[in-house]
């Protein structure tokens, strides 16, 4: 959050490489190809893709804009079915006990326990309601910079992967050192490479 309202938390990414076709038609085609697919009505565990920044249910961009001036504005949506570790543990132990009594065994084999664990996990995941997470971004096409509105490392890794899959371009997080490389001339970059921290006391 932060692109449309409220306070913003973000990191800058530089976009590395050239698009094969910079037309808006090409970009929209790529975005739609990698847009979000709903998993509410199936049993998929996980879904990731682009949606409108104005409406997380609009993944076809028919009613919302994805371009503002020289910027592409998108949200990266991830839905994931999750089961808490405590619930999973409880249900596995319960099912193990049921099977052990049913088969009148003093102890279950390792393979049976693995099978029960997988089956119980799968059943619980199917029952779980997908939890959505939405991260906004603004891509400055002229300067090749993306403002990504999350400081969450997992979300940033998802952005890097999905951006590369969608556009065939790498995004590189702008930490101080890489920001410095973009600001300095060659001679200064060499000095920076060899610089070491100084004590301020």
């Amino acid at each position, binding site marked *: 959050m932060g692109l449309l309202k409220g*306070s*913003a*938390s973000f990191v800058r990414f530089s976009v590395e490489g050239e698009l094969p076709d910079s037309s808006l038609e090409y970009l929209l085609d790529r975005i739609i190809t990698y847009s979000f697919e709903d998993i509410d009505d199936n049993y998929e565990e996980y879904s990731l893709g682009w949606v409108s920044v104005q409406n997380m249910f609009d993944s076809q961009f028919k009613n*919302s804009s994805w371009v*503002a001036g020289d910027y592409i504005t998108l949200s990266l949506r991830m839905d994931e079915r999750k089961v808490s570790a405590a619930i999973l543990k409880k249900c596995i132990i319960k099912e193990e006990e049921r099977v052990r009594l049913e088969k009148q065994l003093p102890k279950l084999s390792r393979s049976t326990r693995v099978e029960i664990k997988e089956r119980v996990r799968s059943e619980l995941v199917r029952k779980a309601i997908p939890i959505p997470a939405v991260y906004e971004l603004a891509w400055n096409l002229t300067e090749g910079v993306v*403002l990504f509105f999350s400081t969450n490392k997992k979300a940033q890794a998802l952005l890097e992967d999905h951006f590369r899959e969608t556009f065939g371009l790498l995004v590189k997080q702008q930490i101080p050192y890489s920001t410095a490389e973009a600001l300095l001339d060659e001679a200064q970059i060499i000095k920076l490479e060899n610089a070491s921290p100084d004590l301020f006391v």
Partner: protein
Amino acid sequence: MDLVDLIAEKRWLGQEFLTWLWFKSDERGGSIALPDRGDISVVFEKHMSLESGEGESLERITCSGQQSELREARTGLAMGKKLESARLSFGFNDYEFSVTLSGSLMEYRSVALPRTEGTEVDGSNPEEVEGMVLERIFLLEELTKTVNQCFRMFLDIRLGDEWRDELIKIREWVEKNAEVVTFD
């Protein structure tokens, strides 16, 4: 070098920048003269965290207080710590931004944008929404450009011949702050 290694190895760069920015802001009572641009206000507020060491010897302190106080933070400086994050406000062109900047990753957290007519509209009119998005992006980029100009100023000094003198001034500032804390 991959990003994780680069962050670890060059962690000091952003921390030295933030600490230098605090010194620079203190030096001129809350303003910094940017080359080719002139004075902007840079005020460190309420909240900051400082670090020293790395790996298992990493030490961190978090401090809050009023603008000119932050005694524990100043004590931390005297103990050799540097700023890892700080809440600060930037003022220029009649705009005022508040932001928590992190040193090692250059993350912009909890950015409060200046209130302008175009930054808060409801979502009913597509043209108004696009205008608002552009206005907000413009303001965010103004902030990042300003931070980068401060960073560029730091880098020019840090990598140039002036650094030796600047470092002496910074050490004097750290020492003076430690005295203020001791005798207060």
